[in-house]
């Protein structure tokens, strides 16, 4: 068997979070080239500051200024940095206990070579020039006995935005694969469940009723029945057709599950449940492994299907 079709998918989102009084103070101070910790129930100074004590769960409120210099308590060496990490050249991850703190902060040390790193090494903050109020305002740490740059004034921050981008390779299932390859040739390939004989289009990896993989392929025609529909009146970002227009569930002849598609060529007020429709395909040169090969459905002109013919598919 050939490998199923697969394709890259990049997932990205800018997570935007409000900071609250504790992290807001910490990140505002980073913007000011200052590091602030918080005193825990046991007197330890936590950097980064915690909102609640990790042992007593007591709310913590006593901020403590700590230095922008400190000592390495533990480290590892990253010979090939990954996307998004603080440095794009080999660096050390380190737990750094800042002078005046009792706990350690994770950050990168720009040491150049693992030979220059050691537990107990003195480091200082290398401040980023364009600070926004984020942990990345610390560009990295550098090996040094010298003090870091002095604090400067900056506005308070109350929000932080963290862009997250992850990259995946998604594979089609063994049943989706012939469906997608069929679409490339303008064919509609469904699968029948060996237990309940229901026909799934698009196919699913297993029959959701019986939990068994579907094995029998069936080719369907591109005609079907509108089971239900809605008239889209609301504009939204990325909309390709000016409203009002109709999104309809289409049950292909011989299938047991309807799918959502666009219905054009008829005024919204004339669309009915039971209306018979046919696919309007895009030009062949635009076809790919996608249902978008069907540009839309339009009325076929046949008489409406009786309710009983689709009542079990609503």
């Amino acid at each position: 068997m050939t490998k199923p079709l697969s394709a890259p998918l990049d997932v990205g989102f800018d997570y935007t979070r409000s900071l609250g009084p504790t992290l807001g103070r910490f990140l505002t101070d980073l913007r000011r080239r200052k590091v602030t910790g918080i005193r825990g129930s046991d007197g330890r100074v936590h950097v980064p500051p915690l909102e609640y004590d990790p042992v007593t769960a007591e709310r913590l409120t006593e901020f403590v200024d700590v230095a922008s210099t400190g000592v390495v308590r533990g480290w590892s060496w990253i010979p090939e940095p990954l996307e998004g990490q603080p440095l794009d050249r080999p660096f050390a991850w380190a737990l750094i206990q800042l002078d005046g703190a009792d706990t350690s902060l994770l950050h990168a040390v720009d040491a150049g070579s693992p030979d220059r790193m050691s537990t107990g090494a003195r480091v200082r903050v290398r401040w980023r020039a364009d600070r926004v109020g984020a942990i990345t305002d610390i560009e990295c740490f550098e090996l040094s006995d010298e003090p870091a740059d002095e604090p400067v004034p900056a506005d308070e921050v109350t929000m932080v935005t963290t862009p997250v981008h992850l990259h995946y390779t998604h594979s089609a299932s063994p049943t989706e694969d012939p469906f997608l390859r069929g679409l490339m040739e303008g064919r509609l390939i469904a699968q029948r469940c060996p237990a309940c004989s229901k026909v799934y289009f698009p196919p699913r990896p297993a029959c959701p009723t019986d939990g068994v993989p579907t094995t029998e392929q069936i080719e369907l025609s591109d005609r079907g029945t509108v089971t239900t529909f809605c008239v889209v009146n609301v504009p939204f970002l990325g909309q390709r057709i000016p409203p009002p227009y109709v999104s309809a569930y289409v049950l292909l002849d011989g299938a047991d599950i309807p799918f959502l598609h666009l219905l054009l060529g008829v005024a919204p007020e004339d669309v009915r449940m039971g209306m018979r429709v046919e696919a309007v395909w895009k030009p062949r040169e635009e076809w790919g492994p996608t249902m978008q090969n069907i540009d839309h459905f339009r009325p076929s002109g046949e008489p409406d299907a009786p309710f009983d013919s689709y009542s079990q598919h609503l």
Partner: protein
Amino acid sequence: MRDIAVVGFAQTPCVRETDGTTNGVEMLVPIFHEVLGSLGLTKSDIGFWCSGSSDYLAGRAFSFVSAVDAIGAFPPIMESHVEMDAAWALYEAWVKLLCGEVDTALVYGFGKSSAGQLRRVMAMQLDPYVVTPLWPDSVGLAGIQARMGIEAGLWDAEAMASVAARSRAAAVSNPLAQLSGSVEVADLLATPYVADPLRRHDCAPITDGAATIVLAAGDRARELCERPAWITGFEHRTDSPSFGARDLLTSPSTVAAGKAAGAEGVEVAELHAPFSHQEILLRQALGLGDDVVVNPSGGVLAGNPMFAAGLARIGEAARRVHDGSASKVLGHATSGPLLQQNLVCVMEGRE
């Protein structure tokens, strides 16, 4: 309290990459068939279903809902999910059985780690304000902990490589393992660092896979299984997510969970240690002596299906009770960075 036992266990082969989707259906259908078939059950005999998986790992929303297709959830079933290793789903199912609501439960976990870049995906479990924006990778973080232990004299590179070598040797008897065979410690130590002080053999491999366990209560368990693995202690504890404030050379949550679950006296322990030094640390935290057989399956250094590997540890331990080779065993699962959360399930056979 009701007596509840692990009566069935099945898992897929651990492999570097499968062709299937990230919703796990292709991996789950065969192991559901296997575990239910071995017990003479059908899906309608199961009172409660519970799963563990992660949408970040799957790279798609509600992947656990798609996974339900593998069950054939009609007529409607009672079902739940945790965004954690399925060992915690097993805990939820155990509580459900304790409450007397149902007599049987099927628990499953699945993960297709090969779809994404696991070292980066794992940054999603860190503090989203002050840690995740740096994209710390799971191997780099574990390297810090490993070095701290080396410098404190708790283990060294040779002891770490010995864990890896023993894991692969044990996995020779496990046909589902990803990595197995006879390797020399000296040869392992001659390999380059992935993240100094960690070498490739110190890190669990990237694995696609799934696992499932069936639980049953009282007489139902005795009907289904000649020698049920009765759960005599099941506890989980957590440490602070602020790992810079933790003592990384021990695992207070493991110590506490082990004590509460009654870990003393076990003959076999399956430990969920994704890095070689963590097995040494966990042995110490659970007070396991040299007479305890640790990871006879090879453990996760021989195959680490994310979100299923902890559940599989409990299944592997239970299997030693089912086959009569042990009478008291322990399965351990971990979650979160650097052994932050730990779960211990102690099981016993009864004559």
